[in-house]
């Protein structure tokens, strides 16, 4: 046994989000555009989801294109350049290469080479997972400026005849830069999973099934809507409450609530369960953007700030939840 001891890294005492940015698919898709094949209507979709339109990207745009545009905005908002980023975390479920990871390609595109780069597969909780990791990387000294991207082209996974989830989905990307801070800017993350409910949000079949059964065609998404609603609306509020408590604040202390934009009915039920005062600005980007999975929280955050409903320095409670099932919540100081 060597008598030598080794050094361990030590990072910043605190971390915070320094800048945020987002982009949405350029096409506005109305409920009427989708209602025919699912024998539905604008009224039915609005009443059950709160969605009026969703944004979808064109055929020539992929998830990397979306992520690059969002990343550039976030880095600029942070007052940095690509070369300042030393870790890139890419949360997505819609990048079609098993390898290499989207994060490394994105890092190269934005001039962040040789940043550490890896993807996060945590569906609609991917961004909140990324913020948890970025906070840990900055405070451990593993990185100084971490780019967290949530980017999805969900329209690549939709079945126009599916009544369970496809009509909810939109395309977009949101990004945040996490860096050192003089004051606490990211509260403790409350996160977890429940793989016993893995089938509740699922792919119709595995890619490997196509080898023997090419007739199955391209996989698309399905969900058990009632199971997911019950889980999200009633089991995620206690997770959010734990995140508030862990940060040392209450629902009365936050200025903004930014849940994953899954369904307006889930958002409304969570507000009730949490007892949020009316003064809290609630992110409702889903009405115009649809459910963009990992991109939804940063997109909704950017919108709250852009519309002046929340301001830099405000406390926001954010929570991501989705396929896995997985979830993560934390209180953050808005950039």
């Amino acid at each position, binding site marked *: 046994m060597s008598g030598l001891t080794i050094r361990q890294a030590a990072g910043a005492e605190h971390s915070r989000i320094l800048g945020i940015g987002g982009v949405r698919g350029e096409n506005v898709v109305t409920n009427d555009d989708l209602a025919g094949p699912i024998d539905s209507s604008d009224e039915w979709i609005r*009443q*059950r989801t709160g969605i009026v339109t969703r944004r979808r990207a064109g055929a020539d745009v992929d998830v990397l294109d979306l992520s690059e545009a969002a990343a550039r905005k976030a880095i600029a908002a942070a007052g940095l350049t690509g070369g300042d980023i030393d870790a890139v975390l890419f949360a997505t479920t819609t990048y079609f290469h098993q390898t290499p990871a989207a994060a490394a390609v994105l890092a190269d595109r934005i001039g962040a080479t040789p940043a550490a780069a890896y993807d996060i597969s945590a569906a609609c909780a991917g961004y909140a997972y990324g913020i948890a990791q970025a906070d840990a990387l900055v405070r451990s000294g593993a990185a100084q400026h971490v780019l967290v991207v949530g980017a999805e082209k969900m329209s690549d996974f939709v079945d126009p005849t599916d009544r369970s989830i496809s009509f909810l989905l939109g395309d977009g990307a949101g990004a945040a830069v996490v860096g050192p801070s003089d004051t606490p800017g990211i509260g403790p993350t409350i996160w977890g999973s429940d793989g016993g409910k893995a089938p509740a949000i699922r792919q119709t079949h595995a890619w490997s099934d196509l080898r023997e059964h090419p007739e199955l065609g391209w996989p698309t998404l399905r969900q058990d809507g*009632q*199971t997911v609603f*019950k889980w999200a*609306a009633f089991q995620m509020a206690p997770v959010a409450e734990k995140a508030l408590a862990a940060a040392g604040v209450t629902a009365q202390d936050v200025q903004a609530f930014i849940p994953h934009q899954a369904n307006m009915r889930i958002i409304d*039920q969570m507000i009730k369960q949490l007892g949020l005062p009316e003064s809290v600005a609630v992110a409702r980007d889903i009405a115009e953007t649809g459910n963009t999975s990992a991109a939804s929280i940063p997109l909704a955050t950017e919108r709250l700030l852009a519309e002046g409903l929340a301001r830099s320095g405000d406390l926001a409670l954010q929570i991501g939840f989705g396929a896995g099932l997985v979830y993560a919540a934390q209180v953050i100081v808005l950039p």
Partner: protein
Amino acid sequence: MAYTEQEVLAGLAEIVSEETGLPTDAVVAEKSFTDDLDIDSLSMMTIVTHAEDKFGVRIPDEEVKNLATVGDAVSFITGAQA
């Protein structure tokens, strides 16, 4: 102590009223949740969750589709009590 069917019906009527705004006396055993009370699938899950909490029972998600009428729900909840 187990709730009687009448107590379950009364409690369920309060939960349904809270969720839908309907008067409690509109919630009677023979009414269909969807056809008569106009309760959609998500509101139904809200009612189910509150009923689980109130009566201390578990109503599996796959069971909910079998609860067509208020009476079905009352029977299930009454029977599910330990």
